C-alpha cells in the first residue's frame, strides 16, 4: 500500500497556503488529518503532484466559544479534541457525541471534524448535527474570506462548495437558542468503528408551552448529501412534540429520504431506520429543551 510520489508542501500561514493553492491549482490536494486522503492516495484514486499539509498553520488550530458568536472549530481540531472539549461537552454535547461516534480511537486522534465535513460523504458522522445546528464553514482564498451556510456546502458524494483555490478555515456553530434541544442518532451493523447505515441529527426550539417554533432535521446516508427532512420539519411547527407527533414526523422523514441499497443496508431497512431514528432524535431533542 505504498503511496504515489508527490511533492510535500508545508505552509506556515494561511496566506502562504492560499498562494500555493493559486500557484498549483488542479495539481494540489490539501491534507489535514489525512485519514481519508491517504487511503485515496494509496488506492491511486487521487494522484496529486503536490500535497499541502496544513498542520503548521496557527490560524487553523483550536476550539473556542464566544457568548455572542458561538462555537468555532478550527480546521485542524481533531475529532478526539472536539469529542473531549469541555465547552463542546457543556454547550454542544451532541457535537461531542457525533465526533466520538466517528471511526476508531486512532482515526479520531488523527482526523479532524472539518475533514469529515469536507470529505462530503453522505454518511459522515459529523454532518447531521452540524446541519441541524445551522453551522457554517468559513472558506479562505487569496481573494478573501466567505462564510458558507452548511445547507449550501454539500453538493454530492465527495463534492463540497469549496473552490479549488479555497481552504476551509473553521466551522462556526451558533449559540444554542433558549429552549432548544439537539440529538444525534446513528445505526450501523457494528456498534463501533463502522460507517453509519443511517444517521440523524435534529434540533428543535420550543416556546414556554412546549410548542415547536423551529425544527431542523438532517438525515445521513439516505441520499447523495446529508438531507434536510423538510416535510417532517414543517409538520412539527406549531405542535407540541408528543410521542405521537414525533412518530408522525418520523414517518414523514421516511418519505423525505431517498435511500439506496448497498453493502451496509437495504433501502427498505434504511427507510425504516430513518423513521425510528428521527422519532428518537426528536424525543431526545425535546427532552433537551428542558420544557
Amino acid at each position, binding site marked *: *500500500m*505504498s*503511496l*504515489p*510520489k*508527490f*511533492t*510535500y508542501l508545508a505552509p506556515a500561514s494561511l496566506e502562504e497556503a492560499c498562494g500555493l493553492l493559486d500557484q498549483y491549482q488542479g495539481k494540489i490536494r490539501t491534507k489535514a488529518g*489525512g*485519514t481519508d486522503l*491517504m*487511503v485515496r*492516495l*494509496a488506492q491511486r484514486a487521487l494522484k496529486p503532484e503536490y*500535497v499541502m*499539509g496544513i*498542520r503548521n498553520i496557527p490560524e487553523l488550530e483550536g476550539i473556542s466559544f464566544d457568548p455572542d458568536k458561538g462555537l468555532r472549530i478550527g480546521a485542524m481540531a481533531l475529532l*478526539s479534541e472536539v469529542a473531549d472539549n469541555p465547552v463542546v461537552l457543556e454547550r454542544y454535547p451532541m457535537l461531542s457525541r457525533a465526533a466520538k461516534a466517528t*471511526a*476508531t*480511537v*486512532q*482515526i479520531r*486522534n*488523527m482526523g479532524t471534524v472539518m475533514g469529515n465535513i469536507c470529505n462530503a460523504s453522505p454518511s459522515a458522522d459529523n454532518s447531521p448535527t452540524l446541519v441541524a445546528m445551522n453551522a457554517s464553514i468559513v472558506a479562505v482564498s487569496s481573494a478573501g474570506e466567505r462564510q458558507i451556510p452548511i445547507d449550501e456546502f454539500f453538493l454530492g458524494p465527495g463534492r463540497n462548495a469549496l473552490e479549488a483555490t479555497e481552504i476551509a478555515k473553521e466551522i462556526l456553530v451558533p449559540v444554542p437558542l433558549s429552549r432548544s434541544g439537539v440529538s444525534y442518532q446513528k445505526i450501523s451493523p457494528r456498534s*463501533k*468503528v463502522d460507517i453509519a447505515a443511517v444517521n440523524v441529527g435534529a434540533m428543535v426550539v420550543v416556546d414556554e408551552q412546549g410548542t415547536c417554533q423551529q425544527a431542523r432535521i438532517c438525515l445521513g446516508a439516505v441520499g447523495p448529501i446529508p438531507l434536510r427532512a423538510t416535510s417532517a420539519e414543517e409538520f412539527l411547527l406549531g405542535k407540541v412534540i408528543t410521542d405521537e407527533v414525533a412518530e408522525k414526523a418520523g414517518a414523514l422523514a421516511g418519505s423525505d429520504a431517498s435511500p439506496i441499497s448497498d453493502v451496509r443496508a437495504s433501502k427498505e431497512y434504511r427507510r425504516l431506520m430513518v423513521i425510528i431514528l428521527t422519532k428518537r432524535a426528536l424525543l431526545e431533542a425535546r427532552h433537551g429543551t428542558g420544557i
Partner: protein
Amino acid sequence: MKQTISLQVNGDTYQLAVNPWRTLNEVLREDLKLTGTKLGCGTGDCGACTVLVDGKSVSSCLTLAIEVQGKEITTIEGMAPNAEELHPIQESFIQKGAIQCGFCTPGMIMSTAYLLNNNHNPTEQEIRAGLSGNLCRCTGYNKIVDAIQDAAEKLREDK
C-alpha cells in the same frame, strides 16, 4: 526528492533521508528495522500498525513520516523498560493468554497503553470501546479484555 528528517523513536533520535510520500509505518519497519509495528490493512481500519505520537494512538500506515518530525514516537519496542523486564501490559497479555497468532498484539498493546494513560480504571465497556479500532481474528477478545483489566489493576498498584 528525499528530505532529511529527524525522528525521535523510543527515546532515540534518528536522522534519515526519506521521500515525502513514505508512511511512518514504512520508515519504522524498513529504515529503522523496528518490525514490531505491523502493517495490516493499510487503510486505518485494523489497528495492527498503531503507535503513539506524543502520547496519542495513531495509525502509522496513515501517517506521513515527514509530518511527525520533532514528535515523540513510541512503538512496541519502546514499551519494555529494559532487556530483562516487560511492561506490565505485556506481562498481562502473556499471563492472561491474550496472544494467539500475535499479529495484532503490538497494536493492541499500544492502544491499551493509550487507554490506560487516559483512564486508570476503565469498565469492561470502556475497554471494548477503547480497543474497538484493533481487530483480532484469534482470541474472540475476551482474554484481551481480561489482560487489560489485569494490567490496569497492576498499573494502579504501581502508582
